[in-house]
Each structure stands twice: as C-alpha cells, then as structure tokens.
C-alpha cells in the first residue's frame, strides 16, 4: 500500500526490501521447496485439504449450476432434457438441495479453516486484497497493450486469482442466503420483516447464478485452463519454471527463507523483492527500508 508513495517520493525506487521473518515461517517455506526423484524442482502450492475442497467445490457447483439453470430455463431443449433425465422438476429440486447442502458444508469448513489459521496459528491469508492488486491489474493491461515493457510480478495470489476467490465468497453468501429463503419461504417470512424478500431472493438467486456460471466459464477457465494449464489445484504442485513465470515474488521469498534456514543464521533478515519494477534500470538497493512498509508482504 505504501509502494506508490515510495515511487513518488524517491526517483530511485527500491526493487527489494529487507525484513525479519519468523523461524516457523522460514521452516514452512523450506518445506514447500521440493525436488522430485528425477531432479526437477517444484513448489508445494496447495495442501491436500485445499485440493479436496476444490474437488468438492467442482462437484457441488457443477451440480447446482446444471440443476438450477435447467429449472430456470426449463423451456430450452437442454433444460428440459436435464429435467427429464433427473426425473422431473421435483426430483431435480431435491438434487439441487442436496448439492446445496454439500456446498454449504464445504463453505462452512472453509470458514472454519480460515478462523483456525488466523486465530490459532496466526497465519494471515494472503488472499486479502491489497493496493498492489490494482496497480498490478493496471500494469498488466498496459503490458498486454504494449504500453509498458514490464510484466507485473505476482506474489502467492495474483489479482486475477483474488478476484476469482472473492467473487466466489460473495456468490456463496448471496446464493446461500437467497437459496435458503426459497427453500423455507414460510418459516423465513416469520422471521424476516417482509414477504417480498422471497421474490427478491428468487431474482437475485437467478441472476447471481447466471453471473457465477459465466464468470467460471470465462474468467476461471481462461486463466487456469486456456492460458496455461495450471494443475496445481489438483496435484498440489507447481514447477519452478511456472513459479518463476506466474508467482516470482513468492518463489523469491521461499528461496530466501529456505536459504536462511540452510545457513542456520537466526534471527535472520531476508531480502524480498518488490512487485513493481521501475521503468528505468533499477539501482541496487542499499538503504534500509522499514519493515512496516511491507505490511501486506510475504509473511506466510
């Protein structure tokens, strides 16, 4: 968040900063850098739990989308085909409810994991949006249009992935709330102030579903399948080459942290590169940068 200010203040912007890291984080980082039996280096990107979550998400989201949209567009050939295959609109609704239950449980589990990580293990997720995401996005478009020579350099999650994630969070809240309203209309109008929330819920559920499916089909499929086939969410791993290309800042942090462990120097100050490269040739950074400037940085 301080970076634009830093750039404005100093013509010679730093390309890297130095900061102290926790020993525990360095150990975690070192564990994530691995070498396969055949000698290829890779990084562990997602844990088994996260991969299972994604599998459940694929299953329940797809089921919800197909059963839901076929109800919404029941006159279309595809919609009526699905409804017929599933044995009518009533049984399709039951399938929809079952998938919604799975989706809901999965979402609650995800929240539980977040709370556990944040308040028990004291690891703050790097998924939270930062100012750098905006500047990254602007620079990315400029780079793609040929307006700048520098490709933005991403940390653990780039702005595309963060947008995807937070859209899913919003979608889950919206779809969950409006879905429950439609599931138990009579009970909820007892609790909630007015009955018109039901039609509002219906409209929102329908539109949000269309939006979610279109977003997955365009944004998610392009970035994780078409652009470069990113299988890390399935096998948990990402090759060093792909890390260098897609998450260079995270890789740099991992390597610096692992090096500190290797040198057995503790407490240690590691050098972490910054995301933005100035237009002119970067000067080698000598001056000390206060730690607080990297508040959203690479703390694991």
């Amino acid at each position, binding site marked *: 968040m301080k970076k634009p200010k830093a750039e404005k203040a100093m013509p010679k912007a730093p*390309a890297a900063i130095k900061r102290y890291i926790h020993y525990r984080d360095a150990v975690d980082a070192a564990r994530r*850098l691995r070498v396969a039996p055949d000698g290829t280096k890779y990084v562990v990107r997602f844990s088994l739990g996260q991969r299972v979550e994604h599998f459940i998400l694929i299953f329940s989201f797809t089921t919800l989308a197909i059963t839901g949209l076929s109800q919404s567009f029941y006159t279309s050939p595809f919609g009526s085909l699905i409804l017929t295959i599933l044995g009518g609109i009533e049984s399709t609704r039951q399938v929809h409810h079952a998938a919604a239950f799975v989706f809901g449980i999965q979402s609650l589990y995800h929240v539980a994991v977040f709370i556990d990580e944040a308040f028990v293990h004291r690891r703050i997720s790097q998924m939270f949006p930062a100012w750098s995401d905006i500047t990254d996005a602007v620079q990315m478009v400029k780079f793609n249009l040929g307006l700048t020579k520098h490709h933005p350099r991403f940390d653990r999650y780039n702005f595309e992935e963060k947008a995807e994630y937070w859209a899913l969070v919003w979608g889950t809240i919206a779809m969950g709330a409006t879905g429950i309203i439609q599931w138990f209309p*009579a009970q909820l*109008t007892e609790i909630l102030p007015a009955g*018109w929330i039901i*039609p509002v819920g219906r409209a929102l559920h329908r539109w949000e579903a269309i939006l979610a499916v279109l977003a997955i089909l365009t944004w998610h499929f*392009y970035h994780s399948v078409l652009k470069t086939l990113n299988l890390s969410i399935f096998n948990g791993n990402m090759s060093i080459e792909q890390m260098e290309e897609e998450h260079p800042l995270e890789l740099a942090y991992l390597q610096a942290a692992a090096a500190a462990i290797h040198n057995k120097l503790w407490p240690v100050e590691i050098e972490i590169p910054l995301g933005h490269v100035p237009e002119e040739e*970067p000067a080698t950074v000598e001056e000390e940068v206060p730690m607080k400037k990297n508040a959203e940085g690479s703390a694991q």
Partner: protein
Amino acid sequence: MKQCRWFVFLFTGISVLGLGLFSAVSARPIFAQEPTPTPTPAQTTVNPHQTNDCLGCHSNPDMVGVFANGETMSLYYDPSQHGDSKHIQDCRDCHDAQKEYPHNGAETKSCAVCHAEMFGGDGQNTSVFKIQTYQDQRAVNMEINNSCQKCHEENFTETTDSEHTRILARGNRFAPICMDCHGSHYITSPNEPRTNVAEICSKCHTSVYTTYESSVHGAALEADSNPDVPTCNNCHGSHKVAGPTNENFRADSITLCGNCHVDKELMGKYGISTNVFQTYLDDFHGRTVDFFRQSRGVNITKATCYDCHGIHNIQAPDNELSSVYPANLQETCRQCHPDAGITFPQAWLSHYSPTWDDTPLLYAVTTFYKIFVPVLIGGFLVYIAIDARRRIADKFGKRPVAANKHTDTNKTGMPDEKA
C-alpha cells in the same frame, strides 16, 4: 261425337282420381295432415302397413306405453313441438328400431287400435300398450341416441372421450347422452341464448351451477348473456367434457384461463391486466406447473390459477369474497403452506411486473444485474481478449517486445536458487 265427349269426361275423371291417389301414396304423409285428437280407423285414410304413417297412431295424446317395471312413457307425438327445428325429417331416421310395423316385439294389442273388431274389442281403451322389448324409457332413449351418429358423426365421436361417456361405461345409465342436453324432438342450437348452456348443465350439476351463478363470470353471464365470460362448456368442453379429475385438465387449466386473460382486446373492456399469465409463468408456481404441463401425465402439486382464485366461485380480486382479496390471502396460501405467516402473502407480487414504485428492491436487484452481468462478463472477455492476443503474439514471435518479460525479473537481483 257425343260418345267421344263422354270418353273425354271419363278419361279426365280417372286421371284426376289416379293422380290424387298417387300423390296421397307417394307423399310422406306424417306432417301432411293435421293431428287428429282421437284417431279412429275411419279417419286413417292411408294404410299404415304400407306407408308408415306414424301419426296414424301416435297422434293420440292418450297413447302411453307401460314397461315391465311399471314405468310409463307417453307415446304421443305433437308435431307442433318441432317448431323451427331442423330435425323435421322422417321419424324412422331416428326411430330406427321402430321402422317396421307392427313394431318389433310390440304387443299384438297394437293391431287392435285399428282392427278392434278382430279382437272382439269395442275400440275403447286402446291407448295403453305394454312395452316388452325395452327395460325402461332410458333403454329406449339410449338406443335412439345412437341415431345421432348418422348425421353428427364428429360430435358423436368426440363424446366417446368425454367424462360423461366414461361414467356411462362404468355402468351409470343415467350419465348424459346427446338427448339429455340437446333434447329430443325439439332440437335447437344449445347456446342460444348463451345462458342456456349453464342451465342445461344445471339439470344435474345444480350446486355447481348455484356457485357459478354468483361468481364474477356467472353473474355477468346471467345479467346480460355476456358473450365474453366463460360458461360451463368454455372450460369443460362441450362434447369432449373433461372433469377436474382428468389428469391433464389441471395441467391445461392454466392455458384455459390464459387464453382469455392474455387477450388484450377482451381484457381491455374490463380493465383487467393481460400481464397475469406471463407473471405467473415467471413465478415459482407457474414455472413448475408449466413444466409439468409439458411432461404430460404428471401429478401437479403446485398452485394453478384456480387454486388461488377459486373455481366456480371465482370473484374479482377486489371483491371481499374473493380468495385472493388481501384479507383472505393468508388463508389461501395456507392451503399449501400451512405455516404461512402474515407477511407470507407479500411474496406474491399480485401479478405485477416489478416496478420501482411497487417493489423497489426487487426492481433494483433485477435492473442492477441486467446491467452488471453483461458489463462484467463483457469486461472479462475484453481483458481475456487483450491478454490472449498478447500471448499469441509472444508465442509466435510477432512482437519482439515479449522478450523483456523475463529479463526483467532477472535484473531485480532476485536470487535464482537458494544459496
């Protein structure tokens, strides 16, 4: 010459007589003569054995038949009943089984009507006949009813798929047949005046008729034979009468109501919205029911028009008696949603499309997404297109600037491998 003149007179006389006799024999004499109140053999001018002069006997007002079960049936026919009916034809066209004389299986006494002297009678008390060939009058009616098919093939075939015929097939002989609704000898168009239809049905469906009479549709019909409102047959069909227990009747009922209620011209007269059908289909109930309607033969569990608005007792929504009158709405919802609270009926938008004034939040949500979804997805696509174009250009080396991408990262002093 005198002889010749006499011959001419004789020839003329014979010719006149012969012509008269011929015309008397060849003409269908049924209605050619006035009915005679008390026919006697002397008054029967033509031999009934040859001419089928039905009225020779059946113009006797006292003539009755007695069935084995004691039921009596008048055998008198008054041709003036016919009025302007188009059915003034030969009796035998319909009374197929009676075209022979003496009638098939008729009591020999019938001979005594004319031939009293042969049976030792005095010509009195010749008007009561035992009918042995039929169980009762209903049997006669049902047999004659088949004759309708001769001319009205199409309508007759339609009735075979009617609820009435199914009841008949189940053994109820008093289920309606053609003549029960259309009458027998005096047959006119049944819907003139239009109130006639409901009155015909009311012969059996009395309680339904009473309810209908006080409904918004029925009252308008009764008041001035309003041609716009539905009467019995508009919903239930005429010959192919369908009942509410018919599996598709419920499914099709929505289009039944819809057919009139989307007609702008018709509804405009009464200031009724034509939006009702589409808003119903857009809603949860309508969507489900319409799907059920398309997959025939499924039991529909969701509300159709009449579940909320009422059937024969339907009233305008601003009538206190209407089941969709605001004060009655919760009770109506509770038919299916037993725990519906006081605010639950608001979930129903009263067939209005969402507007800013009525349902601001719904209108806002819908409008927001209608703009937001295309803009956002369009934005995604633009971003993807820009990104893809750059990547394709880089991959096939059309833009040398691509080479900078990774050299940048190496210039930052980032460690390439762990020390």
